[in-house]
Every structure is written in C-alpha cells, then in structure tokens.
C-alpha cells in the first residue's frame, strides 16, 4: 500500500480579486471544466475522509478562499474532522467580523500573501489596490491571536526589497515567513522574462535571510528555497508524487500537485464520484508517477542513487521543458535537457506583466 498522506490542499475557488502574473492556478480557470464548484456537504465529507486516510494538515486556498460564502462551515467541518486548518488568503476580504467567525469555527492558522513590502509595488504586481487591506488583515489576525504566516512569491521585480519584507514581517508579529521563489507553471510561464531573477539577486536575498535568522532566532521561521532554475539537482516535488500530499480542485478533481492538470492524458478522479481513499490508493493520476518504477534513464540508474530522495523531481516541469512528463526533471545536471534550464536564466528581462484573468490571455 502507498504511504499515508498528511496534507490536503483544498482549492475552494479559482475566483480571485488579485491578478498576480505568476498565479499557479491553471490558465483555463474560466473554462467549462471549473464552472461547477463543490458544495459545502462535499467538502465536509471529504475532510472526514481525508482524516481517516491520515491527513492532519488542511490548506484552504484558491484562488481566494474568502470568496466562499460557506467558509465558516468549512472551518467547522475541518475542526470536527480533526484537521489543522490554514487559510491561505490575499487578505483583502479578511475583515474583523469574518475573522472572528472563522476563529470561533475553529480555523487554526492564517497565511496572508504580500506581493511586495512597498505599497505601490504590491498593488502593481497584484493588479489590484490591496496593500492597505493586507496589512489591516494581518493586524486583525494577530489581534485575534491567530498564528500568522506572511508569504511572498519572489521574482526579479521584488527580490531586491527582501530587507524591507523581513522588517515588515517582524513588525506585523508574524510567526512564519514563506519566501517562495516563482515556479514556472500556470501564468508564470507567460511572464518568465519579467520574473526570472539574476543569480546576484538571489545571492543577496539569501544572505539577507541568513542575517535575519541569526539576529531574530526561532521567534520567526523563514522558509527560503533556492529556485529550481539555479539548481543542479531536482527537488522532491510535493515530497514525491502521491506520497504525502494531495490537491483537490474547486470542481472536485483530485490531483497529486497544483499543476498536474497540465499533464495531458492523466485521468483525475472526482470526489463527487469516488471515495478519497480509492482515489489516493488506486486512481490513474496518483498511481502513474508514484514510487520509482515509472522512471526512465538517467533516473533509472541515477549515479547519485537519489531516486528515493528527489523522486525524479517535478513532472510538470519535465513535461514543459522536454515534452515528456516521465522524463528526468531537466533541473538535474544529468538530464540530457539540462541546457534548457541553463538557457532560461539568460532570458532578456522585461518589466511588462501579462496579468492573470478568468479569460485565457493571448500568449498563455
């Protein structure tokens, strides 16, 4: 039997007031496939099934999960099931009144995104005047004694503000800061030249994070991961395919990662039709790249014996850069396609964004 999952990422809705140019949601979110969102009862049933399967951590995300009118009921359902719930929000709708109701219902943790520590820059990147609301939301979260995480997706146009971001995190009384270097799937592919950082930017940012950790200590946990495009060896994407985590799209399709819908030919079972346990253990999408039997060369005879360490890296990235989802992640220096990763660092930079919308944009 496969290992038990510990994390469920519940994408409650792909609707969002923000238009971030690196949004990891699928580029066809406005299409027919995602029109019918799961109902309250569906989600609550799924939360209980997830707990029985082993899940302990629940991420309520989107899009913007605060757009769900039944969020309080969903948080209560999560608590009843015995899950630890995190709300992953842009913060613009996290008013004191709604935050209080979520707290009473049993929501455990609030994570608020910030696009830049500079108000104008934040609003430009988000494509929405949102900075002041985000700060207000963070203060409300602290006032109500929620543990607070700030997250910021990093790229060429905000990496140089890392010191300001660290200072803001401390000012807001956040417990965690998630610094997520942009990953190139979803809308980020269309914006790669506007987002790809330089090696020097990353080096400076990493040094700033290191200094902050030494100065502040365990009071604030800072997550920092070097982006794939500057790595020589792949990361264990999602902790390994179908190994620790699962993602449920707003329409009920269950996926091994947020970008798995980009892989043509994978069949995603839906929680409307199947119990979660069967989907995890036996459905096509989860079985396809689980473990190591599916691997091709050079993974199959990995000279570093890393098959059980990185699980071949990211399937979606392999597909995008090589045309084959079962290929070795080209981030790996042993991949015959590693030159494509190296070339991508050299893109001529631009400041122009293609913003995320519910309509498929030109060039996406």
């Amino acid at each position, binding site marked *: 039997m496969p290992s*038990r999952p*510990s994390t469920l990422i519940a994408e409650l809705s792909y609707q969002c007031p923000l238009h971030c140019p690196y949004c990891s949601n699928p580029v066809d979110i406005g299409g027919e496939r995602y029109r019918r969102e799961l109902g309250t009862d569906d989600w609550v049933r799924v939360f209980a099934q997830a707990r029985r399967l082993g899940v*302990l951590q629940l991420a309520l995300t989107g899009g913007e999960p605060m757009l769900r009118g039944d969020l309080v009921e969903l948080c209560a359902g999560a608590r009843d099931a*015995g899950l630890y719930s995190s709300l992953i929000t842009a913060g613009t709708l996290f008013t004191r009144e709604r935050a209080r109701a979520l707290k009473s219902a049993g929501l455990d943790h609030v*994570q608020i995104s910030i696009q830049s520590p500079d108000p104008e820059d934040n609003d430009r990147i988000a494509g929405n005047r949102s900075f002041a609301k985000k700060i207000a939301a963070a203060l409300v979260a602290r006032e109500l004694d*929620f543990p607070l*995480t700030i997250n910021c997706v990093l790229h060429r146009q905000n990496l140089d503000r890392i010191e300001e971001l660290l200072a803001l995190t401390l000012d807001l009384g956040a*417990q*965690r800061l998630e610094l997520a270097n942009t990953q190139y799937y979803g809308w980020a592919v269309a914006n790669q030249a506007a987002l790809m950082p330089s090696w020097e930017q990353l080096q400076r940012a990493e040094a700033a994070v290191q200094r902050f950790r030494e100065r502040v200590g*365990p009071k604030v946990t800072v997550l920092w991961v070097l982006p794939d495009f500057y790595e020589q060896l792949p990361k264990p994407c999602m902790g390994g395919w179908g190994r620790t985590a699962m993602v449920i799209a707003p329409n009920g399709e269950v996926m091994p990662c947020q970008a798995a819908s980009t892989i043509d030919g994978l069949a995603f079972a839906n929680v409307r039709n199947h119990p979660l346990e069967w989907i995890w253990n036996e459905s096509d999408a989860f079985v396809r790249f689980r473990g190591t039997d599916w691997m091709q060369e050079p993974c199959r005879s990995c000279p570093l014996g890393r098959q059980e360490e990185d699980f071949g890296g990211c399937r979606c990235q392999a597909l995008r850069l090589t045309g084959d989802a079962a290929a070795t992640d080209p981030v790996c220096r042993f991949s015959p396609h590693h030159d494509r990763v190296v070339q991508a660092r050299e893109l001529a930079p631009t400041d122009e964004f293609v913003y995320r919308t519910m309509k498929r944009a030109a060039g996406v």
Partner: protein
Amino acid sequence: MTRPRLITGARLQYDDVRSEHVLLIPEGVVKLNSTAVEVLELCDGARSLDDIAGVLRARYQGADVRDDVRELVEAMAQRGLVVIDAI
C-alpha cells in the same frame, strides 16, 4: 523564572490513524514520544519549569526529572515550538 508555553496556534493531538501523539503547528506535524507529550501538556504559560518537574515527579514516584524537562523544553524552544517568556 520561566513559564514555557506552546507557540501560538500549536495543538496537541492524538493521531488515531497512525496511533501516535503529534504536535500540530502552522503547516507542520511533529511526532512526539510519550515523555514529550507529558511535558508539553504542562507547558501552559502558567507553570514554571520547576512546577512541571514537580508534577512529573509526583506522577513517577519521586524520580528527579528536572534536568530532563529543562533539556526537552529548551530543545523545543530552539525548534520554534515552545516559547519561553522570562517573567
């Protein structure tokens, strides 16, 4: 005098699927052995380290656990799971 408490938002829970005690924290799960559970249950921000050791000493027929308790709590604080506010 220090009165340790779990970090904001941390929750002790018994995972009946895996039959083990866990500390749930924002986006993390920490597996706990039985000693750690007993100590962390007493880290309520009201009891001092000596109070906690005293409760456990009474529970275990007078065994002196003060050093063990201090070590465990300090290790948990280093990992960002417990806050030790000086009073």
